[in-house]
């Protein structure tokens, strides 16, 4: 079975990989590039665990073919911290006990960062509706919402 050659950018680094035509971006990230921080919870776009940014847009990487990543800029959880300095969202998630098992955490962090990029001062309801595409089964969302609101406050300099 011949494979497709894809050139793309992941977290600012130019990368190349080979993939089957039917492979998803999620599979390419995890299995070809070994970036396993992005998780698969459903494979059908319902849980948000595989959330990544593609050219600045929040997408479920399980719903996008790997070949479609050609020439695009992909951002994953592995690129969220600045060296050894955690992103405020990452820090606040730990401080607020906003994660338990952590399988949904990478996707929620990516989604929350996308929210704060377009709305630096969201209400609690806006956070809840923005994150409605990311399932968490451990926390009941209470501490996740707190962490996002607190990170937003800090990022606004408040």
């Amino acid at each position, binding site marked *: 079975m011949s494979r497709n050659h894809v050139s793309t950018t992941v977290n600012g680094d130019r990368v190349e990989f080979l993939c089957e035509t039917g492979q998803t971006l999620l599979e390419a990230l995890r299995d070809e590039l070994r970036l396993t921080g992005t998780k698969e*919870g459903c494979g059908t776009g319902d849980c948000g665990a595989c959330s990544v940014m593609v050219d600045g847009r929040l997408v479920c990487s399980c719903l996008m073919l790997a070949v479609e990543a050609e020439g695009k800029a992909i951002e994953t959880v592995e690129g969220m911290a600045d060296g050894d300095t955690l992103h405020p969202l990452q820090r606040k998630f730990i401080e607020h*006990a906003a*994660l338990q098992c952590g*399988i949904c955490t990478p996707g929620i962090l990516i989604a929350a960062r996308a929210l704060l990029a377009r709305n630096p001062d969201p209400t609690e309801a806006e956070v809840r509706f923005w994150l*409605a595409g990311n399932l968490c089964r*451990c926390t*009941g969302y*209470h501490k996740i*919402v707190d962490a996002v609101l607190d990170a937003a406050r800090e990022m606004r300099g408040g």
Partner: protein
Amino acid sequence: MSNMLKYEEKALKIVGTRPLRPDGVDKVTGRARFGADYNLPGQLIGKVLRSPHAHARIKSIDTSAALALPGVKAVVTRDDFAEMPDELAAVGELMINFRDVTRNMMAREKALYDGHPVAAVAATTDSVAQAALALIKVEYEVLPHVIDVVEAMQPGAPLLHENQYTQGVKPRPERASNVAKRLEFGRGDVAAGFAAADVIVEREFNTKPVHQGYIEPQACLASYSADGQAELWTSTQGHFVFRAQCAKVLQMEVSKIRVTPTEIGGGFGGKNNIYNEALAIALSRKSNHPVKMVMTREEVFRGTGPTPGANVKVKLGATRDGKITAAEAELNFQAGAFPGSPVNQASMCAFTRYDLENVRVVGNDVTVNRPKVAAYRAPGAPIAVFGVESVIDEMAKKLGLDPIEFRLKNAAREGTQTYYGPKFGAIGYIQTLEAARAHPHYSAPLAPNQGRGVATGFWFNIGNETTCSLNLQEDGSLTLNLGTIDVAGGSRASMAMMVAEELGIAYERVRPTVGDTSTLGFNFLTAGSRSTFASGMACVIASRQVIEKLRQRVAKIREVPLEAVAWKDGQARPVDGGVAQFAPMSLTEVARMAGKTGGTIAGHAEINAQGAGPGFGAHIVDVEVDRQTGSVKILRYTVVQDVGKAIHPAYVEGQMQGGAAQGIGWALNEEYVYGDDGVLQNPGFLDYRIPVASDLPRIDTVIVEVPNPNHPYGVRGCGEVPIIAPMAAIANAIENATGLRLCEQPFSPPRVLKALDQAAAAKG
């Protein structure tokens, strides 16, 4: 019992604070490795072929075409696994039978549910493995099936197991039945109790199976070497239990299998049993390659354990002044394809929140053509309590009593005789109810179409086998090797906190990890809310051993008698007014000299923890019912719970909030939907809808701390109690808002709308 530690009240420096979890940074940066994140050189991908039929005899399986496909390295079917005799073993609160375990992981005579594995392949890639599955030819003789628990109990219902005769019935029945077991618990004279009642309430309830819904599908990686040793990486709640199950069904020596637990992406009881693990080892053995197997979400729904659906009948009698005179329940639980539902636990905790003279509970464990049920957080309790707490609420209303007041009048307390066995020791049910009544939520105003409900839950909590090893390193830091899995509640943090508290050192100096099965002796799995209780006890024992050894070393170094040496605030110091004075020595100083003063210092505990403390919770919920759509919105939610002692309060709150959220999903949306053909129609998160952030309000928590006398810090356990009350609390709130008593779960918009329409029609 001799090495069990008792509760001692003392000033605390670390226990009760909120330090950061040791697994936090790896989990927010994507470094944490879950089941599907492990890979080995040369690995194959394993996939499972599943029955499309609810009930079918397997006449033949032809794997030749699959094996001929390039890239396919091995296929396994029933022929690759030995027949297992009946042999029971404990898994969490439930029992398993190895005869059934081997049949559930791979069908033998019959496929018993849609999704039952019939073959598995290992191939070079996922797509080759998928193609190979399509080439396996299975000849089925489709049989009549039965899905509903009440239908399955009728004479003449399709039989899953032709040689299954109901246990617990005398004389032994002459005809085989889907009722695997009949249980009965009780005390007193129920007939006399009902005769003495002024008011009797009787109701029948039905619930659907719901899934644990962990976001990480089951995933494992197995490597079998030609010397007969196997290694397994898997997402599990109990790596020692998985090792035992694999060894049994693969007929290997236990010590030949080494299981490394990965980070677990949620379990809630659903990762207590093996599914693909033994298949992966078998495929590795047959192919001479490592084999990785990751379930799809559809496979998780079709093939792994949901909690049972059930039919529940409850009858309650009380006097006009609010004293319960008799309580009776019948619980008919779906076991799924093999016996072993949690009907036993559900029967024992149905009425246990109350101090009752006359009680009778009958439970039936019923096999139906659905996946074999697995534990789900306080297994069985939410189902029984939905019925009982709904009836309690209705009775309070009939008597004109405040629902918390009615519960308080009949509440179990220290010394209450349970109807299943023990007398309660120190418990915190009354304190929990009083804290709920005092909470501002309980007296806040409500608007039209809004209602408030309360309900309460009880769970036993358990102890069991636990080991750990605490090693003092040469720089004075400590590594804590735990044998009981941190299922993500944060138990690694809690264990390190208890060790730091004992030793009087900073939390950060203790590095807790969960070791693989070769590093420690057997541990029971993380179930029954046991880890902070049992593993915590082991950690305290190991810490005290370390302290004892530190004192001995210091006595030797300072040339003073042992009794002159006290350990306080991380230092060896002279005992106040003691027999000898000497310069104090810090933990680090002693650690540096350990090699020259007798060798490495370590503590070990190998215990079977006894004396787990029962937990009680009270939930208050406000709902708003949309009369146009039948939609029920949760407006406000408060969880009050006695946890004994919250070692890390933020993580305890997380358990209370998470458990409540799961209970809300169970109440409002979640259900397994089957077609007439016995095929599951909603095996995905789109059609099986768990709560999302916008469905829920903030979930307030009140931690009540009535110490468990049988734990050095008073821990009871907290993980399971919070899922018990929500279904009943929400049903009671809907009744309060609308006057409608809903007895069919879930209270989804179509059901609520139908009930509203029927009530309107009845009114004319």
